[in-house]
C-alpha cells in the first residue's frame, strides 16, 4: 500500500520526487500502547472469569497487528509482566488459605491458570507461530508453566508448605487414614506438568527420603515383635500399598524408586535376621511345610540383591544336614526300602516346596539336585539300596498298582539313580537282583521291568543295559525251548517230575561259581534227557547246571496223612528227597549224599528244620543253629492251614560284609578296562596331553557310569605305558604321547 501511494504521488507531482521519500508513513505513536491496553485488559478479564464479553476475533487481530508492525517484543514483555502480576495475586490467595484448604485453593488456582493460559495462547497464536521461533523466546504455553512454577510453586511461602502438606497426607494415609486422593492426584499432576525436574526435586526426592526413614523405624519395630511369617506379611502389605499409591496419584516412574526404598528398608536390611529367625525362620518354614510363607519370602526376597541366594544357601545347607543325617543314620540303614523311601519323601517334599512356593525356580532345583547328589553319595551303599528298593517294588510293592503309578515310582527311582556317582555299582546289584527276580519268577510285571530298562537305557546308553536285555531274551528263549522239549519227549517221559530249565547265556547273568550237587536219580535222568535234546538242537554249546538257583515243588504226605505241596529250593529238594528212603539222616550223611557246599547246606537245613510253621524236618538236638553232629527226621506232626507251603531259604537279603567286599572288588576290577579304554580313546584323538588334562577328560567321559578315582587313573596310565600304548615325553615328564 505504501509503495503504491508513493508511486501515484510521484506521477502527480514529479517536482516533489525527493520530498516524497521524506514522507514516512508513521504509525500512530500511541498505537502500540493502545493495542496492548486492550490485550492487557482482556488478559485481566480472562483471569477474572469474565471473558464472556471478549471478542476473540478482535483480540487475535490486535495481537496479529502488533507482531506485524514489529511490536512483538512489547507484546511479549507485556504478556510476561501481566501474567506475572496475576500469578502473584493468585499466590496471595493460596498463601492465605487455611490448613486443609491450602491444597484445594492451589488446585483451584491451577485449574484457573490453565484455562486462562489456553485462552491467552489462542489470542497470541500468531505471535507464537511467527515472532517466538525467530527471537529465541519461550512459547506462550511453556512460558505460562514456567511463570507458575517460579511465582507459585517456588515462592518461599508455598514451596515448603506444599511439600510438607503432601508428605503429611501420605504419612496419614500410611497410618490408616483416608485422604482425598483425587486432590493429591491433581496436585502431583501439576508438578509433573511443570516438568520432570520439578516433580523430582520438589516432591519425589524428599518423598523417598521421608519414606526411607518411615520404613526404617517401622521395620525395626516389626522385627522386634513379629515372627518371620508375620513380618513378611506386613512387608508385603506395605509394598503393595506403595505400588497402589503410585498408581493412584504418583508418576508411574516413581514406582521402581519407592518400591526399592521399601525393599531396602524392610527386606534387604533385615534379610539374614529374617531367614535365621528363631522358631519361625526359613528352616522352620521348611520343616512345617509353610508353603504360603515360603512363597511370600521368595517373592519378597527376589526383589533385593542376593535375596534369593540367601534363601537358597540356607535351604541347601539345611537340606544337606538333614540328608546327611538320613543316609548315615545306622537305624535306617538296616532297612534299605525304608531308606530309599525316606529319600524319595524328602525329595517329594522339596519338589513341592519349589513348585508351590519358589516359582519352580531353576536355580532352586539345581540346588536341590546338587544337595541330593552330595548326601546320597555319602553312603557308599546307596546304589545297592536303590536297587533293593526297586527289587522290593518289582517283587511285590507294585502289585495292584495302576500302570501310571508304576511309572511315577520308576521315574522317582531314576531321579535318585541320576544322583549316583557309582552307577556301575548300581548296575552290578541291579543285575543280581534282576536275575533273582527272573529266575524265581517273582517279578510282578514284565512291563514295569522293561520300562525301567528303557529308562536306564535313555539315561546311560545302550551298553549299560545290553546285558540286562540279554537276560530277558534268555527267559523268553527258555520258554520256547521247554515247549519244544515237551513236544518232542512228552510221551516217553510219562509221569516223571516236570522239569523247567532256564538256559542262561554266560556273561549276561551275574557270574556264580558253578558248584553242582547230586540231584536225585529221577531228576538227574530227566536233566540228562534235556541236555541231549538241547545240545541236539544247538550244536557247539556247553550246558552247566546252576543248582544253587533253582526251585522245586514237592508233594509230601506226613504222618497223619496230611498232604501238602512244598515249594522249596533245588538244594532243599535234594535234601528232602533223601527222606523218601530214610527216617533218620545225620548231617554228615546228608552232606555226603548231596555234596551241597556246607554253608549252603546249613542254611538249607536251617530253613527246613528251624523255622516255626515251616519245619517239615525235625532236628536233634533241638536248637537254632545247625551243627555238624546233628541228626534229622521227618516231622510227622507237621501241620499248616495252607495246602501249599513255601519254605524260604534263610538268606540275608542285604549283602553280608564279605559279600559286599566281593562285589566291591568286582566293581573295581570291571572299572579298570573302562578307564583304560577311555584313556586310549582320548589319547588317540589328542596324541599328546598332560597329566591333569587326562584326569579331567577321563573323569568327564566316565561320569555317567562312575566317579573315577584319580589314583586309579594314574595306575591305568602306568599300565598302558608298560604295555607300550603311551609314552612319557622326554622333555616334559608331565606330557604323555600316544603310540599308534
Amino acid at each position, binding site marked *: 500500500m505504501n509503495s503504491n501511494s508513493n508511486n501515484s504521488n510521484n506521477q502527480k507531482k514529479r517536482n516533489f520526487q525527493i520530498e516524497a521519500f521524506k514522507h514516512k508513513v508513521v504509525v500512530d505513536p500511541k498505537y502500540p500502547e493502545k493495542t496492548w491496553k486492550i490485550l492487557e485488559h482482556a488478559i485481566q478479564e480472562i483471569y477474572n472469569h469474565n*471473558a464472556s464479553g*471478549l471478542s476473540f*476475533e478482535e483480540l487475535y487481530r490486535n495481537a*496479529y497487528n502488533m507482531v506485524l508492525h514489529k511490536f512483538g517484543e512489547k507484546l511479549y514483555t507485556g504478556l510476561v509482566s501481566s501474567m506475572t502480576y496475576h500469578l502473584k495475586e493468585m499466590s496471595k490467595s493460596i498463601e492465605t488459605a487455611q490448613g486443609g484448604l491450602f491444597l484445594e485453593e492451589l488446585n483451584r488456582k491451577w485449574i484457573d491458570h490453565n*484455562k486462562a493460559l489456553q*485462552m491467552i495462547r489462542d489470542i497470541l*497464536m*500468531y505471535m507464537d507461530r511467527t515472532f517466538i521461533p525467530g527471537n529465541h523466546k519461550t512459547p506462550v504455553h511453556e512460558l505460562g508453566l514456567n511463570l507458575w512454577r517460579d511465582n507459585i510453586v517456588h515462592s518461599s511461602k508455598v514451596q515448603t508448605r506444599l511439600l510438607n502438606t503432601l508428605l503429611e497426607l501420605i504419612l496419614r494415609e500410611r497410618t490408616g487414614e483416608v485422604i482425598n486422593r483425587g486432590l493429591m492426584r491433581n496436585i502431583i499432576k501439576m508438578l509433573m506438568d511443570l516438568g520432570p525436574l520439578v516433580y523430582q526435586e520438589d516432591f519425589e526426592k524428599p518423598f523417598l527420603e521421608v519414606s526411607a526413614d518411615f520404613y526404617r523405624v517401622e521395620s525395626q519395630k516389626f522385627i522386634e515383635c513379629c515372627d518371620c511369617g508375620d513380618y513378611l506379611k506386613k512387608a508385603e502389605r506395605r509394598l503393595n500399598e506403595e505400588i497402589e499409591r503410585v498408581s493412584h496419584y504418583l508418576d508411574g516412574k516413581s514406582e521402581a524408586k519407592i518400591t526399592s526404598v521399601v525393599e531396602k528398608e524392610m527386606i534387604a536390611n533385615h534379610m539374614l535376621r529374617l531367614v535365621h529367625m528363631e522358631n519361625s525362620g526359613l528352616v522352620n518354614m521348611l520343616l512345617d511345610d509353610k508353603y504360603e510363607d515360603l512363597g511370600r519370602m521368595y517373592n519378597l526376597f527376589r526383589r533385593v540383591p542376593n535375596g534369593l541366594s540367601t534363601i537358597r544357601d540356607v535351604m541347601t545347607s539345611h537340606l544337606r544336614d538333614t540328608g546327611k543325617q538320613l543316609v548315615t543314620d545306622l537305624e535306617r540303614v538296616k532297612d534299605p526300602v525304608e531308606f530309599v523311601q525316606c529319600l524319595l519323601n524328602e525329595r517329594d517334599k522339596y519338589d513341592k516346596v519349589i513348585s508351590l512356593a519358589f516359582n519352580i525356580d531353576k536355580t532352586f532345583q539345581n540346588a536341590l539336585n546338587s544337595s541330593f547328589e552330595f548326601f546320597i553319595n555319602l553312603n557308599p551303599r546307596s546304589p545297592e539300596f536303590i536297587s533293593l528298593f526297586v527289587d522290593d517294588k518289582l517283587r511285590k510293592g507294585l502289585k495292584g498298582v495302576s500302570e501310571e503309578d508304576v511309572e511315577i515310582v520308576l521315574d522317582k527311582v531314576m531321579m535318585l539313580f541320576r544322583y549316583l556317582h557309582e552307577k556301575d555299582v548300581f548296575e552290578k546289584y541291579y543285575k543280581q537282583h534282576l536275575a533273582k527276580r527272573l529266575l524265581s519268577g517273582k517279578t510282578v510285571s514284565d512291563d514295569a521291568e522293561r520300562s525301567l530298562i528303557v529308562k536306564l537305557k535313555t539315561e546311560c546308553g545302550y551298553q549299560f543295559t545290553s546285558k540286562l536285555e540279554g537276560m530277558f531274551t534268555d527267559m523268553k528263549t527258555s520258554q520256547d525251548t521247554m515247549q519244544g522239549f515237551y513236544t518232542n519227549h512228552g510221551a516217553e517221559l510219562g509221569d516223571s517230575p516236570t522239569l523247567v530249565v532256564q538256559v542262561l547265556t554266560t556273561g549276561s547273568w551275574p557270574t556264580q561259581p558253578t558248584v553242582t550237587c547230586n540231584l536225585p536219580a529221577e531228576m538227574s535222568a530227566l536233566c540228562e534227557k534235556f541236555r541231549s535234546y538241547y545240545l541236539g538242537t544247538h550244536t557247539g554249546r556247553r550246558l552247566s547246571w546252576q543248582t544253587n538257583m533253582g526251585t522245586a515243588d514237592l508233594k509230601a504226605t506226613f504222618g497223619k496223612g496230611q498232604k501238602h505241596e512244598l515249594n522249596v529250593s533245588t538244594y532243599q529238594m535234594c535234601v528232602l528227597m533223601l527222606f523218601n528212603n530214610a527216617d533218620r539222616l545225620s548231617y554228615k550223611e546228608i552232606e555226603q549224599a548231596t555234596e551241597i557246599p556246607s554253608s549252603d547246606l546249613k542254611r538249607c537245613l536251617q530253613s527246613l528244620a528251624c523255622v516255626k510253621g515251616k519245619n517239615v524236618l525235625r532236628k536233634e538236638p533241638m536248637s537254632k543253629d545247625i551243627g555238624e553232629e546233628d541228626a534229622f527226621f521227618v516231622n510227622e506232626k507237621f501241620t499248616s492251614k495252607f495246602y501249599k507251603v513255601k519254605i524260604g531259604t534263610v538268606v540275608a537279603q542285604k549283602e553280608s560284609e564279605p559279600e559286599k567286599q566281593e562285589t566291591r572288588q568286582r566293581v573295581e576290577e570291571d572299572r579298570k578296562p573302562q578307564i583304560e579304554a577311555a584313556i586310549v580313546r582320548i589319547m588317540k584323538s589328542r596324541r599328546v596331553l598332560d597329566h591333569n588334562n587326562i584326569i579331567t577328560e577321563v573323569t568327564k567321559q566316565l561320569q555317567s557310569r562312575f566317579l573315577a578315582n584319580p589314583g586309579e587313573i594314574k595306575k591305568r596310565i602306568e599300565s598302558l605305558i608298560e604295555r607300550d600304548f603311551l609314552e612319557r615325553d622326554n622333555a616334559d615328564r608331565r606330557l604323555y604321547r600316544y603310540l599308534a
Partner: protein
Amino acid sequence: MGIQKDRVRLNVGGKIFETTATTLAIAGRNSFFGAMFDEDWNLQPGSPTDHLIDRNPDCFAVLLDLLRTGELYIPSNIPEKLLYREALFYGLLDHVRSAKWGPFDGNRLRLSRSITGRAPGDGTAIRAGPDGGCCVAHGSMVHVYDWMLDEHPAINLDYQRVNDAGWIDSDSIVISACERVGRGDGGMGLFSASTGELRYKFNVTHDDQVKSYTAGALSFSSDDKIFSSCKGRSNEYGIGVWDQTTGKQIDFFYEPPAWSLGDADKLQWLHGTNCLLVATLFPRKDNCYISLLDFREKKMVWSWSDIGAPVFDEGLLDERRVRDAIAMEDTSSICVVNEYEDLGFMDLRSTGGSVRWSSRSRLMKGKMPDEPCYPKLALHEGQLFSSMNDSISVFCGPDWVLTSRLRRSYGGSICDFSIGGDRLFALHSEENVFDIWETPPPPIM
C-alpha cells in the same frame, strides 16, 4: 438440531460466508478457527450473530475452499503472496503448502517458476530443503529461499568461498568453506535458515589442537552425523565426522597413502550398509577415486580407481573419464557418468571390478556447447536423474531407460541440481537463475 448447530455464518471483510463448524475444524486446533470455536471463547457455532472477521474476503474464499476440498486454486486476480499472508494469519500456511504441489514424480514435472538472483559469478551448488525451500551457493555467499520462494537473509562463513551446503532440517543449513590461513576462518558452520545467523561452528581437532581446515563435500546420516571432506594445514586430509546435536567432532578417517579423500567432490551416506561413499573426480585430481568407508571398522570396504587403466588414445580416455558417481543401494551398484552423459555401472558387492558402460547414443559428441557443464547425477525413489548441458534426463526401470527430459529455453547449461521437498531445483551456470520443477497436484479423478 445437530445440523443447525453445525452451521456457521461468517462475515469476512463485509462478505457473508456460510459454512459448517466441521469444515472449519479441518484447520486444526492450532489455527484461528480451532481457537475461535473452542468452548472457552463462548462462540458456539450456530449462534444467531455473524462472526465478523476483518480480513480479505477473496482470499478467505480460496482458503475456505481449501478446507472444503483439500485442493488449492488461486484465481489470477489474487497475488500468491497475499494469499500466503492471509493463510499465515489463520494458521493455514501448512495446509496451503501441502496442497500447492503434488508428490514428486520425475516423469510428471512441470516448470513452476524461475528465480533470478543477484550474486556475481558462477553458482557452486543448489540444495533443496526438506519442505520445499532451497539454498544456492554462489562464491562466498549462500542465498536461502523458503517454499514460497521468499528470500531470507543470506549466509556466509567469514566470507570464505563456499564448497558445499546442505539442509539438516527445515530450519538448519550447514555450509562448508575454504579456510583463511592462520585465522581460523572458514571451515564448516551451522546456520538458521530463517534468520541466517550462525548457530555453531565445527572444529577439527588433531592431537588436542584445534586446526583450521578447508571443508569440502558434505553428507548427513540419519543417525545425526555430519560428514565432510577436510583438508588441513598439516596434512590432516580425510573425512571428518561430527555429531549434529552436540557439534563435537567424533571421528576422523585419515586419507590412506595414494588415495584422495580430503579433496572429495561427493560424499553420500548409505543407510542400508552404514557406509560412506567418497568420490574424488577429474578435473580436481588427474584420476578418479571412488571408495566406500566403514567407520565402525575404520576400513575402506570397497574401492575403484581409474589409475593404470589402459589408454588407447586420448579421445577414448575422455570417454572413460568419470564425472560424477552415485551409489544405488537397492541394486547394490554405483552409477557413474562421463562427460557425454553415458551412464556406467559398477557392482558394489565385489571390489576391483570395472565399469560397464551402457551403450546409449552419444548424440552429445561433437555438439558440445562453448561452456560445457559436467554431468551431475541424482537418485530419488527409484528414478535416476542426470543433468547435461541445458537439460535433465530421467531414467527409470531396472535397465535405466530414458523416460523424460526436462529443458528450458534459456539460462544456459545446468551446473547443479537437487531434489527435495517434492521439488526439483536446477541451477544454471551462464545466467544467475534457477528453476523450480514441481509435480502438479493429483488429478481430480
